[in-house]
C-alpha cells in the first residue's frame, strides 16, 4: 500500500507526482521555496491546488477531476507545524484532549495521558504552552498530532526551533515513536543530515519540482542531475566529454585525464563525484595498472571540520578546477597532508556520476 500524490499548481508553482511508502518515514528535502510545505498542506487538506489527487490505499482524500476535496478535519492526519501551533489558552493536557473530541468524554483523559506518555511529557499535563521549553512544546504538538491515531503524520520542519542537543534527543524519540505507532510519517526538512538520520525514503525538491525520489541513503549519495548534486551539497561537478570505446565501454575525457566511466551516449556532459568517494592513494604503496582512474594533483587547501578534514586539490593539467576530498581525521594522522604537496587520488568509475543535463555555462 502507498500514498499516491499528484499535485500541480500554477502559483505558487508546484509539479509533484510520486508515491510514498506507507508505514515509513519519508523526508521532503529541498531549499526554501521548493514547495515542501505546500505538499504537506495539500496532503493535510489545508491547501487547495489547481490539480490535486491524494490517495491513501483505496481511500481518496482529494481528486480535483472529480471535484473531491475532503476537509482537513475529516482526513486522518496529524500535523505538526514549524512553530507547533499549540493552543495558548489551554493546558498541555487540554491541547491533546482537543484532538479527542470525537472520543466519549469519559475516555478522553486516559487517551490524552497515553499520548503524553508516548511523547514522554506526562508530567507537564497541567502546564500552559508558555511555561514549557521549545523541545517540550514540540513533544506536546507531537502528542496532540498522534492523539487521533493518524494514518499519516505530517511534520513541517519540526526541529528547526530547538537547539542541536534537544534536536538529537527528539530524533531518537521520533524514531522510537514511529516504531510504536507504525504510522506513515512525512517530514519536511532542508537539512541533509536530518533527512539522512530520520528518513528511509526521500523526495528531493527544487522550485516546486520533484528532482528524484527513492531510498534515502541511495538518493542522498547519488544525485541524478547536476541540480540535485548542488542541492545535496556535492562540490565536485565538472565539464567532461564522453567517448565511446570498443564494446560497451566508454571513457570520460576530463582535461588531460581519461577516466573509465559508464555512460551510453557520447558527447559533452557534466559529471560529479562525492567528496567522500575521492580516494587518496597512499604514497607508500606503489600503484600499479590495477588502480582505477588515478588523477595526480596538488593540495591547495586543507580545513579540519569536526571528525573530518576537507582537502581541495588542483588536478594536474586543470589549474582552475578544484576537487574536494573528505578524509577522516585518523587517515590524515596516518598520512599527513599539507598545502603544496603532490598527491594522487583515485576516482573509481562506479562512483562517477554522469549527469544528462549539462549546463555549459558552469565552470570547469
Amino acid at each position, binding site marked *: 500500500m502507498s500514498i499516491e500524490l499528484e499535485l500541480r499548481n500554477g502559483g505558487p508553482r508546484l509539479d509533484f507526482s510520486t508515491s510514498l511508502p506507507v508505514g515509513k518515514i519519508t523526508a521532503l528535502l529541498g531549499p526554501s521555496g521548493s514547495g515542501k510545505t505546500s505538499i504537506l*498542506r495539500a496532503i*493535510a*487538506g*489545508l491547501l487547495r491546488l489547481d490539480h490535486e489527487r491524494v490517495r491513501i490505499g483505496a481511500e481518496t482524500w482529494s481528486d480535483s477531476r472529480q471535484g473531491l476535496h475532503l*476537509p*482537513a*478535519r*475529516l482526513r486522518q*492526519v*496529524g*500535523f505538526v*507545524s*514549524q*512553530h507547533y*501551533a*499549540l*493552543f*495558548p*489558552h489551554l493546558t498541555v493536557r487540554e491541547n491533546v484532549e*482537543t*484532538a479527542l*473530541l*470525537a472520543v466519549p468524554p469519559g475516555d478522553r483523559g486516559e487517551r490524552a495521558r497515553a499520548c503524553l506518555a508516548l511523547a514522554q511529557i506526562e508530567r507537564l499535563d497541567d502546564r*500552559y*504552552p*508558555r*511555561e*514549557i*521549553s521549545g523541545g517540550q512544546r514540540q513533544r506536546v504538538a507531537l502528542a*496532540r*498530532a498522534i*492523539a*487521533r491515531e493518524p494514518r499519516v503524520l505530517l511534520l513541517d520542519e519540526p526541529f528547526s526551533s530547538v537547539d542541536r542537543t534537544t534536536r538529537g534527543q527528539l530524533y531518537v524519540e521520533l524514531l522510537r515513536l514511529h516504531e510504536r505507532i507504525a504510522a506513515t510519517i512525512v517530514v519536511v526538512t532542508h537539512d541533509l543530515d536530518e533527512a539522512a538520520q530520520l528518513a528511509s525514503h526521500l523526495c528531493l525538491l527544487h522550485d516546486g519540482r520533484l528532482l528524484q525520489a527513492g531510498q534515502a541513503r541511495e538518493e542522498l549519495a547519488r544525485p541524478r542531475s547536476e541540480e540535485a548534486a548542488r542541492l545535496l551539497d556535492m562540490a565536485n561537478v565538472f565539464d567532461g566529454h564522453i567517448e565511446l570505446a570498443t564494446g560497451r565501454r566508454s571513457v570520460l575525457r576530463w582535461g588531460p585525464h581519461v577516466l573509465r566511466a559508464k555512460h551510453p551516449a557520447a558527447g559533452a556532459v557534466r559529471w560529479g563525484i562525492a567528496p567522500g568517494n575521492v580516494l587518496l592513494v597512499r604514497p607508500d604503496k606503489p600503484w600499479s595498472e590495477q588502480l582505477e582512474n588515478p588523477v595526480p594533483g596538488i593540495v591547495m587547501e586543507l580545513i579540519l571540520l569536526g571528525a573530518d578534514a576537507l582537502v581541495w586539490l588542483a588536478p594536474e593539467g586543470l589549474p582552475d578546477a578544484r576537487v574536494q576530498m573528505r578524509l577522516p581525521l585518523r587517515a590524515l594522522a596516518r598520512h599527513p597532508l599539507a598545502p603544496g604537496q603532490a598527491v594522487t587520488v583515485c576516482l573509481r568509475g562506479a562512483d562517477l556520476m554522469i549527469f544528462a543535463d549539462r549546463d555549459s555555462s558552469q565552470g570547469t
Partner: protein
Amino acid sequence: MDWQAITLSLELAVVTLAVLLPLAIAAGYLLAVTSWRAKPWFEGLLALPLVLPPTVIGFYLLVAMGGQSWLGQWYERLAGHTLAFSFAGLVVASVIFNIPFAVQPIQRAFETIAPDIREAAQCCGLTFRQAFLRIELPLAWPGILSASVMTFAHTLGEFGVVLMVGGNIPGETKTVAIAIYDRAQAFDLAAAGSMSLLLLAISLVTIAVSYGYAERLMRRRRPA
C-alpha cells in the same frame, strides 16, 4: 443627582451592548478572516461614526426614524409611536454610533490569531463551530472585552446623537449626559458636578479593571 437619568443611561448601555456585541463578533470575525474587493469600503462605512460629527449622524438617524421615512412609518404602525424621541430609538442610534468601538477591537483580536492555530484546530478534527467556540472565541476574548468596555463607557457618555435622536424626555430619553448639560444650563453646578464625577468614576473604574484583566489574560497566553 438625577438618579432617573443615571439609571436610564446604565439601562441604555446594557441594552446597546446586548444588541451590538453578537453582531460585532460576527462582523469582526468575518472581516478578520475574509478578503474581498469591497471590504475597505465596508470597513470605512463601519468606521464613519469615528470621524463624522455626532450631530451629522444624529441628523441622518432622525430623518431615518421620522414619520416621513418607511422605517419610521413601519415602526409607528407597529408600536403606536414614533421611533425618534423614544428609548427604542435611542438604542438604535446608540448601536449604530458604537459600531466602530465594538467591531474594530474584535476584528483586530481575531486577526491576531495565527493561521496555523486555525489549521491546527482543523487537523484536530474540530468542526467550524467547535473551533470557533473552543479556540477562536477564547483567544479573541481580550478584544471582545475591550470592545464591550468601550461600547459601555461610550454609551454612558454619549451626548450629541442622543440629543438629536432622543431629545430630553425624562425617564424616556434623558440620559445622564443630557442631564448634566441640563443642570449646567440651569446653573445647578453642584448637581452637574456630582453627576460628572460619578460618570468619570464609573468610566475610569470600568476601563481600568478591564485593561488590567485583559493584560493578565494576554500575559498568560504569551509564548515564553
